[in-house]
């Protein structure tokens, strides 16, 4: 499956892919079958890698892509703050994501028959697009503010590394697109963890964080906003295509013959703005023994 960069940069609701439902179902089964509290130390990295694969292979796009990354940060944050108990809190919601509509109905009927409760047939199974908001609201309702604070840190402080990877690492076009899809997912994720609302700074955050940490969040938010604006513009200008990048490579070669320093600066600038793929001019850069 190829990545739909438009769907990634313009996040919209999409159905939860069956592959994700099945993957989360298998994950849930292995956690539920284990009685070992240290299972999270294996499960969370394994899930994080799985989420990367889903995003980078285009299995999830848009809101769903942001949500699968959010799950990873929510699990890590909860485990870091409250260990086995914390990870279990978040995992209760992940289990629901791994259920099909039919499985949920069957589960609800089993609960109802055991407890004599009426089944609410209007209740729908939670899907990826609802997960982050549900978790944030749950943490607020249950006063799990330590986990919420760690989730803010984990999610918001990691975007820089993803952005730099998208600027610098790809050795081919497909990898660059996968890196940009990861970046878009991280950038979309921050909407569920806002720093401000229409009335200004979120009052809760002043209780959760020291002013110096809030300043770091604000600065990183500014950087994130630019990291969204640049690829967004490049995409609209049709610069993120193999054909355009081929033309850029040819233009670099031409400029390099006329003005070596100017050409290399032009290249570095274009890469920092997501206009030029990281692999363009690579052999020329590698020739410099730095």
């Amino acid at each position, binding site marked *: 499956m190829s990545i739909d960069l438009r769907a990634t940069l313009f996040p919209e609701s999409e159905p939860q892919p069956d592959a994700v439902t099945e993957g989360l179902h298998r994950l849930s089964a292995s956690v539920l079958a284990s009685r070992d509290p240290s299972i999270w130390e294996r499960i969370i990295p394994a899930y994080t890698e799985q989420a990367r694969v889903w995003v980078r292979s285009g299995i999830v796009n848009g809101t769903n892509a942001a949500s699968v990354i959010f799950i990873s940060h929510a699990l890590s944050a909860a485990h870091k703050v409250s260990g086995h108990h914390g990870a279990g809190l978040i995992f209760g919601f992940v289990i629901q994501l791994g259920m099909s509509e039919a499985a949920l109905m069957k589960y609800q009927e089993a609960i109802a028959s055991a407890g004599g409760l009426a089944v609410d047939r209007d209740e729908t199974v939670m899907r990826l697009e609802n997960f982050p908001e549900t978790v944030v609201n749950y943490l607020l309702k249950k006063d799990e503010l330590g986990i919420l604070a760690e989730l803010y840190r984990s999610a918001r402080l990691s975007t820089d590394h993803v952005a730099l990877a998208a600027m610098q690492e790809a050795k081919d076009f497909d990898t660059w697109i996968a890196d940009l899809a990861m970046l878009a997912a991280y950038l979309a994720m921050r909407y569920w963890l806002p720093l401000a609302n229409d009335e200004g700074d979120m009052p809760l955050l002043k209780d959760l964080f020291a002013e110096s940490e809030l300043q770091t969040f604000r*600065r990183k938010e*500014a*950087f994130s906003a630019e*990291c969204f604006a640049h690829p967004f513009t490049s995409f609209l200008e049709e610069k993120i295509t193999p054909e355009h990048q081929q033309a850029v490579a040819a233009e670099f070669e031409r400029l390099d013959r006329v003005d070596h320093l100017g050409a290399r*600066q032009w290249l*570095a600038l274009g*890469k920092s703005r997501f206009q030029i793929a990281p692999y363009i001019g690579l052999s020329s850069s590698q020739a*410099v023994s730095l």
Partner: protein
Amino acid sequence: MTTEDLYISLYEEFSPTAEYLQADSRDRAFLAETAILMGLAFALSAFVESFFGHLGEKASEHLLSRINGRLKISQEQADRSAMLEALELMGPFLKYLDEMTSGQRLVYQSAVVSALESRGYPHDVAEDTASQVIHRLALAGAAGLA
């Protein structure tokens, strides 16, 4: 290694996070190429002040004044030629940076970190950027500037 090689390696390290130069601004706009060059000159000025302060008599006041003068022009006018001249003047002294321990280099790195933090960089990004700038300068010291 040429002075131009050193310059472009510094620019390549600095430009990816240069958007932080306007992170504290309420009126962020498209970051001009000139702003990146001016920001790099600002970071190098912080390095020069700290590094040459420690070198003492190895570098004359006159030389230091010339380096600072070029970097000032570069900071104020985004003048790349002035920065290249400053790097060329710094060149013979960068071997001392290469010969220093990582602990000694950390002093100069801290000066660059503080400078970048004063211009909108979060601490972790300022540390990474400063570390790369110092690393590039030390590599140039090891290779010698032609």
